[in-house]
């Protein structure tokens, strides 16, 4: 069962994140956001009179470790709910256990539809997410390429080892073709590759005027750098997986010029809620601006707290019911309403890299 219900003094919140390994940057950012929100809520009296106690586990960016992590959280620590993981794959790895043990599992940034819907199309009752989903991201990217950048021939270079990238590239393909574009080349790589030159050379020979690169920052950074070295000068674009300071280190600011990414929000958004969050975050982190995953981690805690409040209880079945009913909840990363598949309907932001900085380009509503 999901924790020991109402008996304990604390509300135990498991955080199962990528704190090391291939995509540690996401996990670290989200955990930081979570902790900031928890501190705020605890200061304001907690949830249902209980202080939230965070118990962190590191899943090392590996699915098997994510599974071990949630087993430990539910059976040893008896947590009331779990936040994590950062990526879709590592979240899916926990979904079955969350459902079996009736533990609420919240994914801040797992954008793949499979996070909340299983392969048979059934909703995973206890699993929720805070972010928009990949079919939407992919569509936004394709429309941006076709309409804003006005390209006709696009290529795709995607990470074959994540459902996330696969979903993005499918959505991109479909929409881009619908918008009258042509996909001239499609290649893939796997996580932890370091040499993309051969495949990039192959892509270059197809003369695309735009390349869509859904994937995570560690590989994307190298891909962007190597592509530029091989003389590929066309615009490159990716999705939320690109958002990490490490990307700039790896690719180099120069190589990133003329590249775009989709993200959950922009610090430049004048919205009051956003600006308040940015200021508060900067205060606590010697002036560093929050990235999208800081914000999603932060939002996820409020998303959960809102449901607890409406449920009037920390019983996980009751919380789960209320979470599913969430509607028009105003958060830093936008206004959140869930559909029947636990997919939030939210807006997305397109950013452009200019000399190593993310610059706001457009905001696209669903």
């Amino acid at each position: 069962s999901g924790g020991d219900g109402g008996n304990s003094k604390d509300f135990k919140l498991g955080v199962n994140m990528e704190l090391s390994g291939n995509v540690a940057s996401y996990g670290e950012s989200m955990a930081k956001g979570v902790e900031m929100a928890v501190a705020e809520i605890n200061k304001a009296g907690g949830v249902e009179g209980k202080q939230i106690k965070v118990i962190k586990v590191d899943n090392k960016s590996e699915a098997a470790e994510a599974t071990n992590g949630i087993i430990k959280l539910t059976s040893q620590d008896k947590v009331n709910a779990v936040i994590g993981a950062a990526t879709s794959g590592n979240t899916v790895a926990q979904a079955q256990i969350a459902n079996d043990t009736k533990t609420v599992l919240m994914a801040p940034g797992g954008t793949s539809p499979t996070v909340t819907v299983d392969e048979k199309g059934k909703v995973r009752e206890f699993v929720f997410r805070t972010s928009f989903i990949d079919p939407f991201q992919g569509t936004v990217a394709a429309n941006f390429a076709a309409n804003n950048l006005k390209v006709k021939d696009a290529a795709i270079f995607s990470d074959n080892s994540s459902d996330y990238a696969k979903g993005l590239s499918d959505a991109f393909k479909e929409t881009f073709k619908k918008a009258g574009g042509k996909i001239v080349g499609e290649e893939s790589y796997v996580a932890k590759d370091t040499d993309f030159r051969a495949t990039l050379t192959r892509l270059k020979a197809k003369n695309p005027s735009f390349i869509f690169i859904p994937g995570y920052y560690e590989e994307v950074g190298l891909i962007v750098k190597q592509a530029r070295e091989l003389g590929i000068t066309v615009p490159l674009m990716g999705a939320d997986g690109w958002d990490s300071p490490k990307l700039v280190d790896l690719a180099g600011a120069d190589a990133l010029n003329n590249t775009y990414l989709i993200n959950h929000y922009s610090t430049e958004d004048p919205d009051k809620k956003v600006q308040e969050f940015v200021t508060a975050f900067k205060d606590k982190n010697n002036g560093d601006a929050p990235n999208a995953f800081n914000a999603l981690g932060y939002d996820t805690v409020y998303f959960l707290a809102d449901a607890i409040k409406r449920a009037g209880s920390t019983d996980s079945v009751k919380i789960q019911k209320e979470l599913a009913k969430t509607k028009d909840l105003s958060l830093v990363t936008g206004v959140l309403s869930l559909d029947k598949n636990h997919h939030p309907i939210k807006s997305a932001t397109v950013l452009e890299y200019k000399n190593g900085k993310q610059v706001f380009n457009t905001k696209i509503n669903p």
Partner: protein
Amino acid sequence: MKKSKPFWAFVILAAIVYGVVQFFIGSGLLNQYYSNLFITISINIILAVSLHLVIGITGQFSIGHAGFLAVGAYISAIATMKFELPFILAIVIGGVVAALAGLIVGIPTLRLRGDYLAIATLGFAEIIRIVLFNIDYVGGAAGMQVSHLTTWPITFICLFITILVIANFTNSRHGRACIAVRENEIAADAMGINTTYYKVLAFAIGSFFAGIAGGLYSHNFYILQPGNFGFLKSFDILIFVVLGGLGSMTGSVISAILLTVISAFLAQYPETRMIIYSLVLVIVMLYRPQGLMGTREITDLFKWKTAKGGN
């Protein structure tokens, strides 16, 4: 009969181990974490003992055992998840297909020797992994969801059968033929032993049980990904066998238990876990290069005692 004494001792020991663990789980004294630990230990013992037959008994230096684990894991998962076959049947199918894979890998590679055999088996294991990577039917790199069906009783029965079969095989003229191959292949050949046959046979039996372990493994972990079966996994199994003492089945069992428990215990100290683990490994090998048990079996200890007492 003299020969059957250790056999009955083993059966009784097994029954006791099973009973005790089952009692604790049944009475709720052990939570899921611990019952899982027992299952993991058992799976690791099966893996260690099955590789022990190949390396320790037959002397064939295979370092790609995780490949057969993967075959068993995936085949049995497909059987339960896609064809909805009963779990027990799925495990057996996993074992059989892994044994076939063992034959396919073994026949061309077992004529290689020493380090060349090692790298070839490792290569095959990597190929198996990459093939799984590229099959969308089983989810590719992202993996496939598998129901949790592995239970302590099933695991224990598999473990019991594995040890019994491999011990009986080893202590027979066929097992001796394998040992002869290990000791001196040329002489074994000259004594009328079909060395290729026994090498391939041992390899296939070893793969079969690795496949069985695979079935238990995949239905214990909810998600199955090719990434879990890399060469580091093969090394883990290899380490059980060598650390226990090459040629000693008891050694394999003991070191599988020991290392699994140490790993689980160290999980509480994530920053230093691997450092301590690797230090243990290096230090044990430096001070006991022949492994914990050397080539002795637990039964030898009794023999030794009675022999001493008799004098």
